[in-house]
């Protein structure tokens, strides 16, 4: 267990993680002082939150917005990524990749002018924030396509468009799920920020801002636990969907 590259069974790994988590929680429980809430208090707050309609409603608002943003982002990413194999459009794709260095905060006013309501503003900011990261990941998949995949197409007599369809559109479809899975955290992180821009529709970000405003750290951490759990759920669901839709990824 303490040797490099040692293989351990799933059961032992489970026990090890449980002990580590328990140790951290116990240390936290007995060392927390002042404003920092203890794990048990957070647990109680979480229990209370879970029984309220408030949390469910806000989670649904955030989830809907995230899923919408993910869908649009994937479509835009695929558009730019597929075009990137055509030399004329490559600079556009590369520019999109570089856009990840722009901060959303500096663009809020421009987006406010370009959109008609708060909902559109949040969605467009999220999409603008996510697309450069998705495109970066997908372009790296395209750049790293083994030469043999394209050469096999050539030897089979495929034309260039047919090769694009086979190797990139069909062959890398599973990677889209993997990229969404890997970058989901970015979307989840941004949502709390953009929801603060238009609070009338609610959302988990709005809840967080409200609790933060009143220094209600117990509920803030309870909400963080909810966000963490939802992230893990999405990670699992996207992984499972990838395996189900693309069985060859299992081997």
């Amino acid at each position, binding site marked *: 267990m303490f040797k490099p590259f040692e293989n351990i069974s799933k059961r032992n790994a489970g026990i090890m993680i449980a002990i580590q988590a328990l140790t951290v929680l116990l240390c936290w429980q007995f060392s927390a002082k002042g404003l920092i809430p203890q794990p048990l208090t957070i647990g109680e707050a979480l229990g209370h939150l879970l029984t309220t309609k408030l949390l469910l409603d806000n989670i649904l608002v955030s989830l809907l917005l995230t899923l919408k943003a993910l869908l649009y982002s994937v479509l835009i990413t695929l558009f730019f990524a597929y075009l990137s194999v055509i030399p004329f459009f490559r600079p556009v794709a590369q520019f999109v990749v570089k856009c990840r260095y722009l901060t959303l905060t500096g663009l809020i006013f421009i987006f406010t002018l370009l959109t008609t309501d708060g909902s559109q503003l949040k969605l467009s900011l999220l999409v603008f924030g996510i697309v450069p990261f998705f495109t970066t990941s997908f372009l790296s998949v395209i750049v790293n396509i083994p030469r043999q995949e394209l*050469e096999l197409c*050539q030897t*089979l*007599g*495929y034309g260039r468009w047919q090769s694009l369809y*086979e190797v990139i559109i069909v062959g890398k*479809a599973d990677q889209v799920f993997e990229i969404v899975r890997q970058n989901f955290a970015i979307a989840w992180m941004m949502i709390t920020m953009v929801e603060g821009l238009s609070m009338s529709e609610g959302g988990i970000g709005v809840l967080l801002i409200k609790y933060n405003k009143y220094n209600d750290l117990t509920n803030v951490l309870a909400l963080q636990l909810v966000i963490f759990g939802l992230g893990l759920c999405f990670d699992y669901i996207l992984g499972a969907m990838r395996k189900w839709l693309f069985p*060859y990824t299992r*081997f």
Partner: protein
Amino acid sequence: MTSYTKEEVLLQARYLNLAFDGKWVLRNINFCIRDIVRPGIQQGQVVSLIGRSGIGKTQLFRILSGLQRPDSGTVEISQKPVVAPSAGEAGAVIAGSMRAVQAGDMGVIFQNYYQFKWRTVHQSLRLAARQNKSLWGVEEDAIKHYLDRFDLQDVLHLYPQQLSGGQQQRVSIIQQLLKGSDFLLLDEPFSGLDVCVLDKVVELLLQVSLSDERKTLIIVSHDIATAVAISDTVFILAKENGQAGSTIVKEIDLIERGLAWEKNVREQKAFADTIGEIKACL
């Protein structure tokens, strides 16, 4: 000796040169593959390009397959079946029947039998069959025919990652056969195979070569004994008199030596002599 004639030129490589970073890899490569005709027998050609590791075999393989352009020189293939010349004209190149090779003209079996990992065997074979106009409408029958012949019925719905090396090799061969090319280029088909599998592969390739009069197998290998045992012609790729870049230093006609199309060829003295002769050239 079995009677035969060498007739139409099927492939002609002329003055091929290739350099990387100013260093010659291939220099002045010239060779020609002709249709071997045996009375009463449907007989394709099996040609081996033998050379030591790192001599440039794979580069020549890529040039022959049309995947890489040489710095100079041409590879031409017979464009379509032409009326065979009479015996008196045997060996004459028919003007206008040759054209430069392009990617897709040759069936190519890569060393690691690469397949699309997202396609099942059936999907891969179907895609290949669709590329062959003569199989339109009868793709499934053709796939079944080859799967039966190559003993692969059980792997139809598996992915390449689920197949053994031998199965992957056979699927690659079927895929390229379904595509319908007269030429089949194989890069090191014998490497890493155990003795039992090796015999099967040799038998399989011979089977393929007999499937069509114009079917031409070009095997690039450093396994001298196996290549000689299976081939009718051997070209030796080596460096010449200390000159930079590899070239074809010798062509050995194994038919003339009675070493082609024989079952127990390895037991013949001429076989051992030929192996020694090739080794001396490398």
